[in-house]
């Protein structure tokens, strides 16, 4: 091995050692720093992706129209395409109005945010939002929509933040079940195969006997999540050797999230 290669290997080893010596707070700062550098690309890329999706949706509806209405004239198709565009705009207005209404009637103080990127790794369920430290976002703040709990903030940079979704195995939420005195811990599964991941509500009593459809809310125990946020509804219940476990369908469709709110406290 040449001298240059040995020096390169030593420098590589030294930098590697430096990174491996990072503690939790340094790791947080490192991650936040890199995300801050990537922030313009992530927000820009999100806009481009939306435009591409919009064009693709437009083409698809034109295609469907052609199949269903083969006798229609070109002019008619153009009018329908225009209508489609207007409907998209109307839907967006409705969605934003809905979100705004939720913010006004909610008992929580909320910061509206948009999801700009989804998890790019296999083993973690995360989403990047376009709000950061300068908007008042802090680590461990809960993230929700008008439908229920989404997750919590784990990384904050100046202009973007990373939220760990409730479907991640590491996102543990103290929960209570409506109509019972049962309390437990909700967490996601390590691997999800379907589009809608299921959550596990663990540490219930064996006598819980929960029924499908019962609502599961945050209990407020632990201090991260305020009480009363809807997590989901019970799908199944089973008794294990030491405790009872319920499978919970999340209230929020985590695969199609666009707008979320970061909960900063109670009003």
């Amino acid at each position, binding site marked *: 091995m*040449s001298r*240059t*290669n040995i*020096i*390169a*290997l030593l*420098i*590589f080893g030294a*930098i*590697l*050692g*430096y*990174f*491996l010596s*990072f*503690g*939790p707070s*340094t*790791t*947080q700062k*490192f*991650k936040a720093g*890199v*995300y801050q550098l*990537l922030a313009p*690309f*992530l927000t820009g*890329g*999100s806009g481009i*992706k939306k435009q591409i999706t919009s064009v693709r949706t437009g083409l698809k509806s034109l295609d469907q129209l052609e199949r269903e209405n083969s006798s229609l004239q070109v002019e008619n198709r153009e009018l329908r395409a225009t209508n489609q565009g207007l409907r998209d705009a109307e839907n967006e207005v409705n969605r934003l109005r809905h979100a705004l209404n939720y913010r006004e009637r909610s008992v929580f103080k909320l910061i509206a945010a948009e999801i700009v*990127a*989804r998890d*790019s*790794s*296999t*083993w*973690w369920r*995360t989403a*990047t939002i376009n709000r950061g430290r300068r908007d008042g976002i802090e680590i461990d703040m809960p993230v929700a929509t008008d439908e229920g709990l989404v997750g919590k903030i*784990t*990384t904050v940079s100046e202009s973007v933040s990373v939220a*760990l979704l409730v479907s991640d*195995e*590491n*996102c543990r939420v103290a929960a209570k079940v409506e109509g019972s005195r049962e309390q437990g811990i909700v967490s996601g599964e*390590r*691997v*999800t*195969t379907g*589009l809608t991941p299921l959550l596990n509500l663990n540490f219930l009593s064996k006598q819980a006997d929960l029924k499908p459809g019962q609502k599961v809310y945050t209990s407020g125990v632990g201090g991260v999540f305020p009480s009363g946020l809807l997590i989901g509804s019970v799908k199944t219940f089973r008794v294990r050797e030491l405790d009872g476990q319920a499978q919970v369908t999340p209230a929020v469709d985590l695969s199609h999230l666009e707008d979320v709110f970061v909960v900063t406290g109670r009003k």
Partner: protein
Amino acid sequence: MIFFIVLLLLVLVAQIAEFFIPALPWLYNAHVYIVPVIVFYGAMALPFPLMLALALYAGVLLDAVTVQVIAGKVEISAGSSILIYGVLAGVMHGLRPLFARGRWEVHCILSGVFTSVIVLAQYLMITFRRGSLVFTREIGWQIAGPGLLAMAMAPILFWFLQWIGRMSGYSYQPERGRLE
């Protein structure tokens, strides 16, 4: 040197693109990883010091994406991706003479295998941290899937990178100390 800078830029672009490529539901939600293929190409095409620099750069980016600090605990420590990339790129670099002779088959297959090794290594690390070893068919596919996709992408990406190398006047001959 120009080719090396181009590779750095491509790694950054690929890392950002991975944020916007959804998981594939028909392959058990396997993710598409482009960066490893570019890094492994760089490992074969670049001299040893630049190969290490590329592995370091890609490792830092992957670390930033994968490290999670939850409740004051680090799940996968920063530096682990740098180490994985460094070792795998080093192995790939050892096959450089074969690549210089224009034999790409082994490298395309190994790019896929090594991509799966990265995902497997991450899985083993989180399994060690979380304390329960679960291995299902879905997990198997989420590890093997990215490798198969990388293997399928590798010939096209290698051809593209080879073309960029030619355009930037880069010499692929494994001559000691020659950078471009």
